[in-house]
């Protein structure tokens, strides 16, 4: 187990390093990046940039200074917002994005699992068809389409919810729904197929042959095994939710990190793009690392053959 964790940890550091390096190399390649801009109109901004990125030094030295700044979680100044650093923006935006993201992933997990289990238990029944129709629709309708649809129908026309921003629980309903539907659909489908497979296993028959109550067979014997594949895709889902926040925050005018990120893309605010990309990547890779460990804890077989199970 310790070896497994160490190996995963090493992979995590390696991945973050690759992303950081990739970002550095790519940013060095474009005109208009902090590394190549001759003079920004704003003297103060230019000074900040030079101080943070050490633009006088040769690129290789810059690279190591850059790596060091990432290791210390200092992502430098913004070009377009002269009085803010990337860290300021993250500090302001990330908690809101995280709140939205966490609520969405919890909603997606809970409803997806329930939907998937019900569909599997009523295989080929009405609930199954209904759940799977919802799931295919959920996968097919892009979150931004769903978001606009929800605003139009439930906020503008219906008036049940406020149109935008992030202030009260009522404000959170529509963005959460828009963000959670896609992952929920994926979880529901995966839970269903995995549950169906588990239910045909001998150990389920064995559990029934012991005379256990149906709920016990399902919850104790089937669900844990059926949720293994769901755990493995949690990382991917989290990535989907995170990138989803970019458009959802834009549409609902939620002042989260996603909104700043989209702004920085449109304004070509390179230090913010760099910083956010590296920060988000590191965050996701770390989440993936945690998921791997959780998987190792859940599945007692992991020590023997973790490479086989794809």
């Amino acid at each position, binding site marked *: 187990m310790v070896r497994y964790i160490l190996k995963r940890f090493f992979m995590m550091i390696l991945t973050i390093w690759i*992303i950081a390096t990739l970002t550095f190399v790519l940013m060095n390649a474009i005109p208009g990046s902090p590394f190549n801009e001759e003079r920004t109109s704003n003297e103060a901004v230019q000074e900040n940039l030079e101080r943070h990125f050490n633009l006088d030094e040769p690129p290789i030295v810059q690279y190591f200074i850059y790596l060091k700044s990432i290791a210390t979680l200092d992502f430098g100044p913004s070009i377009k917002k002269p009085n803010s650093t990337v860290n300021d923006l993250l500090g302001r935006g990330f908690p809101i994005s995280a709140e939205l993201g966490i609520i969405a992933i919890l909603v997606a997990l809970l409803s997806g699992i329930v939907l998937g289990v019900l569909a599997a238990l009523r295989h080929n029944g009405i609930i199954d068809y209904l759940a799977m129709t919802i799931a*295919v629709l959920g996968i097919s309708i892009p979150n*931004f*389409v769903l978001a606009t649809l929800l*605003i139009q129908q439930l906020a503008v026309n219906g008036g049940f919810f406020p*149109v935008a921003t992030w202030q009260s629980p009522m404000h959170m309903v529509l963005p959460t729904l828009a963000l959670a539907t896609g992952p929920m659909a994926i979880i529901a489908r995966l839970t269903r197929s995995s549950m169906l497979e588990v239910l045909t296993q001998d150990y389920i028959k064995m559990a029934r042959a012991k005379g256990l109550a149906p709920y016990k067979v399902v919850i104790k014997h089937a669900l844990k095994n059926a949720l293994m594949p769901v755990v493995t895709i949690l990382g991917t889902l989290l*990535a989907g939710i995170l990138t989803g926040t970019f458009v959802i925050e*834009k549409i609902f005018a939620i002042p989260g990190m996603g909104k700043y990120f989209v702004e920085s893309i449109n304004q070509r605010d390179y230090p913010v793009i760099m910083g956010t990309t590296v920060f988000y*990547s590191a965050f996701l890779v770390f989440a993936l690392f945690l998921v791997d460990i959780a998987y190792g804890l859940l599945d007692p077989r992991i020590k023997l053959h973790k490479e086989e199970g794809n």
Partner: protein
Amino acid sequence: MKSQTTQSHDHIDSNSKEIPLDWFKPLEGANDSANTVVRPSLSYWKDAWIRLRSNYIAMGGLIFLILLGIMAIIGPYLTPYTVDGTILADQNQPPSSTYWFGTDNLGRDVFTRTWYGARISLFVGIMAALIDFTVGVIYGGISGYKGGRTDNLMMRIVEILYGLPYLLVVILLLVVLGPSLSTIILALTVTGWVGMARIVRGQVLQIKNYEYVHASKSFGAKTSRIIRKNLLPNTMGPIIVQMTLTVPTAIFAEAFLSFLGLGVQFPVASWGVMANDALTTILSGHWWRLFFPAFFISATMFAFNVLGDGLQDALDPKLRR
């Protein structure tokens, strides 16, 4: 089919004395009938096609996609308007006999632009799937076939690429390369092939141990021949499914990028760009500007998803009887 006499024989009681005595004589040629195969054997693809055809939802998806393809080709020629031709007098016109899907805020015909968007979306989706396919099959095929240390190293690389957050890398690349049709496809495929490579490798690993591969190896067949003749036909099922499901992912990614301002640039229109431009209509009420691109994105993704599901059921040899 049965004659009246045999019908009545069915009801003869075992104890009955009615059974004619001459029935107790040996039956000639009975053993032969036991050996004949009842079910006609069908080729893999024919069998798959029959099963796909009986899946109405998947067939609905396929038909929708064929129609969409046709409209993407001829749609823009059905109107007198061009994709970027602005008619300033007719801004934000609702759907009518002149403008079938209405016009946008610059007076451009939404109908014409929608089918242009279909071209872009389908092109992006299909190109991404084809490139993923090519790279993934080559990479995964080599990795799985060679095995051992080569496989180990190649899969380590895949594992790292798999760990990279897909859309973030795509965004970063597009920021650097500048958004255009070709850079979008490039960015989408830079890490997109990884999933395909994994599937192909898994399939190859599974199949290369089968007897018939050993057999052709022992006849001295070349590696390339074994891959072409034995491995590829048997791995095609999951690969086709993966390709079908890559298309909607790519279509979604393109629309998503357009939403972030990283989509294809003026004067070309993609559904994502159209939807993004139409965001303000949530409040203004020009619903048609948002509805048509949003509907077609969703319907196309839906069609590809149900087709992919249908193919998965149809092509899975484990379900064959």
